[in-house]
């Protein structure tokens, strides 16, 4: 060994911790002055887009002593952001226009590497000048014990353009200003919240009156508009939507002997801030608001394990626990449409989960191994239900069956895997089951929809243990305790033709059984689903070329049950007043689903139970099974996650090291899901992506990498906007008026077959096409080996296309009801058929440029300058509806699409010692 190799370092002395503390204190102090958030990350990696901290210069030609002792590194600097953008600073915190401090450090030390002492420590901190700062301290005696303390902050900035009229943001009660005027312009709609008043253009627009005459607003209506604008517009003010997640954790690892390890860890996380949540005031008019929602959550997690190694046997007993607490249990808000009315929302309930896992593995021989795992978990949730009197919306007029859920879920896992390498064969066989057994007790919950007071009398009122006074629009619901048991088994055999060529064949069987504990009827859309998968893979290396091809085909089949939705409505199994059997019995005896007969108006009027349950051959009457909503499914409809499916997956990868200087890598992936027995719903999903990477190493000093990825996803779905069969000819208009569209010639014909109108069938063709291209460049040893340049450019071009085929009917605005309405001229269409239009393309184009330069001052000090330009130019139609004055019933937020163009630049001084 050369003398240099035996040189010792002095990091184990007390000097290093003291120095560390002082430097940390300096950095912390600097960071305190930095009000802005985040550290720009420099890029030097070979994969564009991934980032490393703006690292200090590491000199080359290190001595043996330098190579064998830990290094301490620190970075202090100043940087600035050119303009504020929440989207740009979504996670990195650079969401404000500001100057901020750059502070990163990485200190380590401990005993000498060749001493018998194994004490070592490591202290790292990053982004100290920003809100997103992190820190990790590790120390311990290797092979004996190890401690880790970590702290980190994650930001999630959502929007800085959100506006709301609600007061009390940050609390669980939202109110409206005292001078709030309900924004309903009677000229547009006499009852529904329409916010037209906030927009002078739309508010002053003309409408057709009951005589079919286009009429401007009256002076009184214009005065009302002005009053609404004067009172309500000032109430809208900006609220930043952002979440902060602060997490601290402690871990300890004890190693009492070489064969036993005991890792223990605890963590606490607090999540705080605001986001939006949709709140419904009136389900009938769909008056809703995107409310500022206070997030105030705590999550504690703990884990512990005992790992024991006994010769060929390895055993592990582990515990994991998680406790989530929501510090705000509910939210109440005022209805902007009805002064004095309040609505309530139950927030995410506090819950706990505890899990024990036992793992064992045994080396049967040098080449054979068996691993078995068993795990059992218990999740509970028992937060008190919301108090029915908390709001005055009248949602729960009949009280509650119990005060809390008493939610209980058991999870279980059993898994076994056997692996064997024998000669040229490599074999794997595995079996697995996992279960979610929801043991939450059921209850019957009676509730009214939003702003839907009781009307009529339910055919179940006062029967079957239910209270009297139930309306026909009262929902009588059972909760469902969704449970699932999954079995899997399979095997793979790989044959090696040579050291570099392999062929694998595999088979997998998977069965999922679904049920609901205590449910009166099968609740699962597919009670049992089985899937067989066949896989093959070939890979070969030859010289500079490495190739891999994988293919898998799977076939999933299940027993789909179109009446599973009835599990939620226990009255479907009870006989309603006036009928001779229950809805469920009726459906079973007729072989129908909740959709009823797939037919137009019956030739002769229906009688008996058919007239009660499926009047006019329509869907099952809601009141007859105690629901306000139409829950049924159309025959032939399949939910894609349980539907019969043929899946083809293929993947290929090619690596060519053309020369020492050039490497080319290409890969392609394809996934095709064909829901072959689905007539309605998602019928096909196809996804493919291709990537090309080229790396060029001109010399040790110059490296360039380029990549391009194209990603294409297509979802093809079908639907049916069926209506109800009626005998009506046309509302308000006498006679059998003319209809538009290719399917029927008269309104009467269409209404008679409204349920099976082929013009109401539609298809969606949703495509995502995304191009991503990147370039990284690194040049070292410039300016007399003192300058290093690095740069990265990444461009992403995202397109989402939502193509729609089909159409819908819309009444001619001149075809008005009422005796005063003028009749339409002969031959004029009373109802137009409107062909569907594609949604506008959603675009997200992002360009990011990040050059940096490092200048070496001395062997241990360097100066680093960095710059970051990023631009996002998106378009998104969903924001149109959020602006005031659009004819929508939800409270506007005036949010705008997050477009930005931001420059970040800075200078930092780096030390290595």
């Amino acid at each position: 060994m050369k003398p240099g190799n035996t040189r010792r370092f002095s990091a184990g002395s007390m000097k290093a911790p003291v120095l560390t503390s002082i430097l940390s204190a300096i950095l912390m102090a600097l960071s305190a002055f930095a009000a802005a958030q985040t550290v720009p990350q420099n890029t030097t990696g070979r994969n564009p887009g991934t980032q490393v901290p703006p690292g200090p210069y590491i000199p080359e030609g290190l001595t043996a002593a330098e190579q064998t002792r830990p290094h301490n590194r620190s970075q202090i600097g100043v940087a600035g952001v050119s303009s504020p953008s929440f989207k740009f600073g979504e996670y990195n915190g650079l969401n404000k226009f500001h100057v901020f401090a750059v502070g990163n450090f990485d200190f380590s030390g401990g005993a000498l590497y060749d001493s018998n002492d194994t004490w070592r420590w490591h202290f790292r901190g990053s982004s100290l000048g920003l809100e997103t700062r992190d820190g990790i301290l590790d120390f311990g005696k290797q092979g004996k014990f190890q401690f880790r303390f970590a702290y980190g902050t994650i930001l999630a900035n959502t929007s800085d353009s959100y506006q709301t009229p609600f007061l009390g943001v940050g609390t669980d009660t939202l109110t409206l200003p005292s001078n709030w005027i309900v924004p309903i312009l009677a000229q547009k709609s006499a009852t529904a919240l329409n916010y037209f008043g906030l927009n002078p253009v739309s508010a002053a627009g003309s409408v057709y009156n009951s005589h079919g005459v286009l009429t401007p607003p009256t002076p009184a209506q214009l005065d009302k508009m002005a009053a609404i604008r004067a009172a309500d517009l000032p109430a809208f003010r900006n609220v930043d939507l952002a979440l902060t997640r602060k997490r601290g954790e402690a871990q300890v690892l004890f190693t009492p002997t070489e064969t036993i390890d005991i890792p223990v860890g605890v963590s606490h996380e607090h999540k705080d801030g605001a986001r939006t949540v949709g709140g419904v005031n009136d389900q009938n008019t769909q008056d809703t608001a995107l409310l500022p929602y206070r997030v105030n959550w705590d999550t504690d997690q703990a884990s512990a394990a005992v790992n024991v190694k006994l010769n060929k046997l390895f055993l592990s007993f582990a515990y994991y626990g998680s406790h989530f607490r929501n510090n705000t249990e509910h939210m109440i808000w005022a209805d902007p449409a009805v002064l004095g009315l309040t609505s309530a929302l139950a927030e995410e309930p506090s819950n706990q989960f505890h899990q024990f896992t036992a793992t064992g593995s045994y080396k049967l021989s040098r080449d054979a191994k068996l691993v078995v795992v068993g795990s059992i978990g218990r999740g509970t949730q028992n937060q008190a239900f919301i108090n029915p009197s908390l709001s005055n919306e009248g949602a729960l007029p009949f009280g509650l069956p119990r005060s809390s859920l008493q939610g209980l879920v058991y999870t279980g896992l059993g898994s076994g895997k056997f692996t064997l390498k024998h000669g040229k064969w490599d074999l794997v066989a595995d079996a697995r089951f996992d279960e979610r057994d929801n043991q939450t007790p059921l209850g019957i919950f009676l509730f009214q929809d939003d702003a839907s007071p009781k009307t009529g009398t339910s055919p179940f009122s006062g029967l079957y243990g239910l209270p009297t006074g139930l309306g026909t629009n009262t929902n009588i619901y059972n909760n469902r305790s969704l449970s699932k048991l999954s079995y899997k088994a399979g095997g793979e055999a790989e044959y090696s033709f040579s050291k570099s060529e392999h062929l694998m064949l595999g088979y997998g069987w998977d069965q999922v059984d679904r049920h609901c504990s205590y449910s009166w009827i099968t609740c699962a859309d597919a009670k049992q689903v089985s899937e067989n998968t066949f896989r093959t893979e070939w890979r070969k290396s030859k010289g500079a070329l490495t190739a891999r091809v994988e293919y898998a085909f799977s076939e999933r089949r299940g027993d789909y049950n179109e009446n599973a939705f009835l599990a939620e409505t226990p009255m479907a199994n009870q006989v309603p007043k006036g009928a001779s059997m229950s809805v469920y019995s009726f459906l079973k005896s007729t072989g129908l689903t909740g959709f009823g007969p797939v037919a137009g108006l019956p030739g002769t009027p229906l009688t008996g139970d058919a007239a009660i349950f499926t009047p006019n051959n329509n869907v099952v009457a809601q009141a007859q099974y105690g629901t306000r909503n139409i829950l049924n499914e159309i025959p032939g409809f399949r939910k894609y996650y349980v539907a019969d499916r043929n899946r083809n997956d293929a993947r290929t990868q090619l690596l060519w090291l053309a020369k020492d200087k050039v490497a080319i890598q290409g890969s392609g992936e394809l996934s095709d899901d064909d829901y072959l027995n689905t007539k309605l719903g998602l019928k096909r999903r196809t996804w493919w992506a291709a990537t090309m990477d080229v790396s060029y190493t001109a010399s040790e000093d110059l490296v360039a990498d380029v990549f391009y990825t194209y990603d294409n996803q297509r979802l093809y779905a079908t639907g049916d906007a069926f209506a109800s069969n009626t005998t009506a000819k046309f509302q308000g208009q006498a006679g059998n008026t003319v209809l538009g569209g290719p399917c029927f010639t008269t309104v009467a014909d269409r209404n008679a077959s409204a349920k099976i109108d082929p013009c109401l069938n539609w298809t969606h063709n949703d495509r995502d096409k995304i191009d991503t291209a990147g370039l990284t460049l690194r040049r070292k040893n410039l300016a007399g080996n003192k300058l290093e340049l690095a740069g990265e450019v990444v461009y992403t071009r995202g397109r989402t296309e939502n193509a729609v085929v089909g159409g819908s009917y819309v009444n001619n605005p001149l075809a008005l009801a009422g005796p005063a309405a003028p009749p339409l001229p002969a031959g004029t269409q009373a109802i137009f058929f409107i062909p569907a239009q594609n949604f506008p393309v959603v675009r997200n184009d992002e360009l990011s440029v990040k050059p940096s330069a490092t200048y070496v001052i001395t062997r241990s000090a360097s100066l680093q300058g960095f710059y970051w330009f990023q631009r996002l130019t998106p378009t998104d139609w969903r924001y149109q509806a959020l602006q005031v004055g659009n004819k929508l019933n939800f409270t506007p937020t005036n949010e705008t699409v997050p477009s930005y163009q931001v420059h970040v630049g800075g200078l930092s001084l780096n030390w290595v010692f």
Partner: protein
Amino acid sequence: MAESHSLVSVWIVGFVAKPLGISGFFVLLALLWTFPLQRFMAYPFVFLFFAAIMCSAWFGGYIAGLMAVVMSSILITFFFVPPYYSMTIGREFQSYVAAFVICAIAVMALSSARKKSETAIRASRDELEIRVNERTAELRHSNQEILERERQLMLLTEAIPQQIWRSSVIVALVVLCAGTRSFAQNETFAANKKSPAVAGVDRSLDGDKKCTLCHNESSGHVLSIYQTKHGVKGDSRTPGCQGCHGESVKHQENPSESPEIVFGAKSKQLSSTEARSSACLSCHESSVHARTYWLGSAHEKQGVTCTDCHEMHNPEQKVLNKLTQPEVCFQCHQNERAQFHRFSRHPILEGKVTCSDCHNPHGSTGPRLMVKNTITETCYTCHAEKRGPFLWEHAPVVEDCTNCHSPHGSNVTPLLKTRAPMLCQECHTSDHAKGLYSGANLPGGTFVTGNGTIPAGGQSPTDQANGRSCLQCHSQIHGSNHPGGAKYNR
């Protein structure tokens, strides 16, 4: 005193903790596997408990076997013998349970006796092997001595006549000494040449000297390994150069020969994946960072080895740093690299979340190398508020978060596969979910009809197609705990 403490701890570990651990483990496994299988059986299914007892007795001896018998009896009585969840045994099952206990004891006795006899056979075999080795060594030594004497004799017989012929006795003695020395030198060379071959792998850092003589500070960053956990002399587990690279006798004799195990990806002498993996797994297969699931895992099956991701000589391994880990993963997962540049994504590029927060690249019990048993369990480690159980559960949410979300990135916020209402209409076709929503339903939508362009009337715009679409009202889509929230709107 210290000795008595040590005896007590040895007794506790040997006669209580170890048997209890082994028996508890196997019985627990049997219990977990019996739960799903029991539903297919008319009578209590106890066969897995027999297996557990056998394994306990085999690995832990009589005491562990007895403990397993007791535990199995209790668990079977409590869980699988009517009346369930009670220690009472129904009359018709009393004989069944008694038979089980008797058979269990017999199985336990048989298993531990077999184990004992096998251990005894193995011990005698080992002892025999040692004796044979000793005898062989003695024989070899004797042979060498004989050979040495023969050779010395031969030298003497050759040297003496020559000296008599040419010179004096003194000169003959000098020649004799020289001849003997030459022989000794030859022997030393032979021994030097042979020593690495017969020596065991030197796993101490002192043993590294034979490597660092050549592989010194001028050989890149080879010596940087002494900054890492693999270069701590005080830790008896430290492997040393030969612990990973193999004994490499030929390489020591001739530097142009490659070491036994070569990890450098660019090297033409790169060792096979099996050899490279074995070098690491010899220590890491079952240890604190257990690589228990490595064999048969997705990465292992595709020929990925430890050093494809880990740089053992680098004290700042990219794969162990949150900020730089994705660079390593993206070398192969290039499509995922692109996905993390999309409009909606997890904060991977900022280093706030990293690949190994969700995936365990060394294999796991979950699908897609998830760190937990299922995808949902993995997501709940950060999103515990969505765990519930809720009063009103949404089936696809309970099943799998990826039914609706693309966790690596999406063009649609928040990480959605496609946007609402299209996403929701893939599963819902009743009530207002059945409707056709198109670009005609956006604000400002007008239609060209036979009568010319007219306002869209009641068809446009619609709440369901705009803003948050379905989620504007059904905002509690992950589940609701409001007694009136069956439609996920409260």
